């Protein structure tokens, strides 16, 4: 059963002047159809202004569709009664770690979600402990979030969502403000949540390396889904990606260039360095 499903989802940003007349309409999403199964790891790629963040906000019922609908676990986001339920089922992690941490101590922040859900106090502590241990932040529970590194802050933010026991976590460019080490930490945490806890992950990003591990990739441009498939399928279409001003992982790029210069036996859609090395070795031992 699909955990998240959108059907012909369109959304307009409407700008009004002082008298309240509509001065401009900006279509951010245009007839987006998307379906995510339970337990999947989905990546949504796209450049700036491609509508990927707008899409994410629809899944968490922060924005409501202008046309079409969004279903989270079979419930429509546009209906008021479903909102709290949907926000618990589909948690969201934002880009800026500083602006989403509410508590002044790590454990208090992780407890914020469960507190809002009305969980009894003892159970909140259990959830906080569990969430912090999953994210490897248990030893920092008494720290002030101010003193943590970017990657650690973002893991605290993820723990805050995990403590709500969601079925799905939407991560809206969680690594955009982090250094490479922090980025690695966060992606590793996301993969572990997907592998071990079977939580559906929807990762929105513009770093291609992070997409490699996804089950499915959606590429967005101008508010529409332009491509969709496994990472291998997507990255074998290097020219199309380039037209959308999107990069491909370095290994993929190198394989593509080698192929263009005559190494035609190389397969399409090589994703990692390791794969490239094995493929090249295989080729040369044959030759």
């Amino acid at each position, binding site marked *: 059963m699909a955990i998240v499903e959108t059907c012909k989802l369109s959304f307009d940003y409407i700008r009004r002047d002082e008298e309240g007349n509509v001065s401009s309409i900006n279509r951010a999403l245009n007839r987006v159809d998307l379906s995510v199964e339970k337990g999947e790891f989905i990546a949504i790629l796209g450049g700036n202004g491609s509508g990927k963040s707008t899409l994410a906000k629809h899944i968490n019922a922060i924005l409501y569709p202008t046309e079409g609908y969004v279903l989270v676990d079979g419930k429509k986001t546009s209906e008021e009664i479903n909102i709290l339920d949907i926000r618990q089922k589909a948690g969201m992690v934002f880009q800026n770690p500083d*602006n*989403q941490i509410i508590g002044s101590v790590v454990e208090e922040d992780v407890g*914020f979600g469960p507190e809002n859900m009305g969980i*009894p*106090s003892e159970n909140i502590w259990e959830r906080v402990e569990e969430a912090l241990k999953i994210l490897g932040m248990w030893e920092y529970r008494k720290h002030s979030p101010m003193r943590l590194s970017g990657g650690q802050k973002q893991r605290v933010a993820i723990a805050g969502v995990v403590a709500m026991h969601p079925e799905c976590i939407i991560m809206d460019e969680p690594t955009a403000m982090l250094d490479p080490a922090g980025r690695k930490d966060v992606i590793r945490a996301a993969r572990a949540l997907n592998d071990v806890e079977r939580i559906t992950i929807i990762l929105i990003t513009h770093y291609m390396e992070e997409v490699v591990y996804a089950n499915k990739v959606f590429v967005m441009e101008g508010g529409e889904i332009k491509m969709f498939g496994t990472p291998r399928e997507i990255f074998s279409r290097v020219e199309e990606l380039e037209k959308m001003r999107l990069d491909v992982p370095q290994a993929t790029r190198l394989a593509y260039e080698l192929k263009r210069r005559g190494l035609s036996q190389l397969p399409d859609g090589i994703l990692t360095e390791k794969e490239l090395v094995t493929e090249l070795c295989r080729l040369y031992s044959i030759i």
Partner: protein
Amino acid sequence: MLREMTLGQYYQVESRLHRLDPRVKLMGTLVFIISLFVSQKAVCYAVATVFLICMIKLSKVPFGYMVRGMRAIVMIMMITVVFNLFLSPGEALVTFWAFTITKEGLRNAVFTAIRLTYLILGSSLMTLTTTPNDLTDGMEKGLGFLKIFKLPVHEIAMMMSIALRFIPILLEETDKIMKAQQARGADFESGGLIRRARAMVPLLVPLFVSAFRRANDLALAMEARCYHGGEGRTKMKPLKYKAWDVRAYVILFCYLALVVLTAIVSPV
């Protein structure tokens, strides 16, 4: 400058006072302030002094650290003392030129000085021994009865705790903007007070813009985590009175009774 102020800051140390329920401490501060205004006689102040010294000893906060917070209010204190000293009518003690110091004036000046000092010491004792979060929790629970009058107690407490969390972030931001502007030739250090104040104006605009942006982001993040006001919300650390809290209430009550009694009975 803001970093040096000890007024309203938390001092981390293990003590009986630190462990008290924040509601008791809020109540205690209120009782102490009331007792200061009830006091009209020297004996009352003696009682208050003993009480305050005992509490400071109990809190294990170094006295010097507390006094440092007082420097900010020295000016205000001087002004009130001078006004009281010269402007109270009554039996003249000393007269020179246009000024007269009266017996009542002297008495008022001394009492006002003591009152103000104790007021600050008493309330900073509360903030020094209570974390901001405990404080807002205590206010939310302790003032919960005001909800009958449609006062949004939970919302106010939530706003306070968020504001407290964002103070260091905004300070850091101010520092960043200042450095960015200095790198482009802005001058915050030279010139008189007015010139320096004027140099701060271009600092405020970007600071406000970023504060609003942060507020917007934070509101989104809170909503995304199911925040929907205080209704149906549970607490991670619910406040519960313990044996020592009850004892503290009894001590407070005894103290207030003693002050009121001495105020009525004592001749001086």
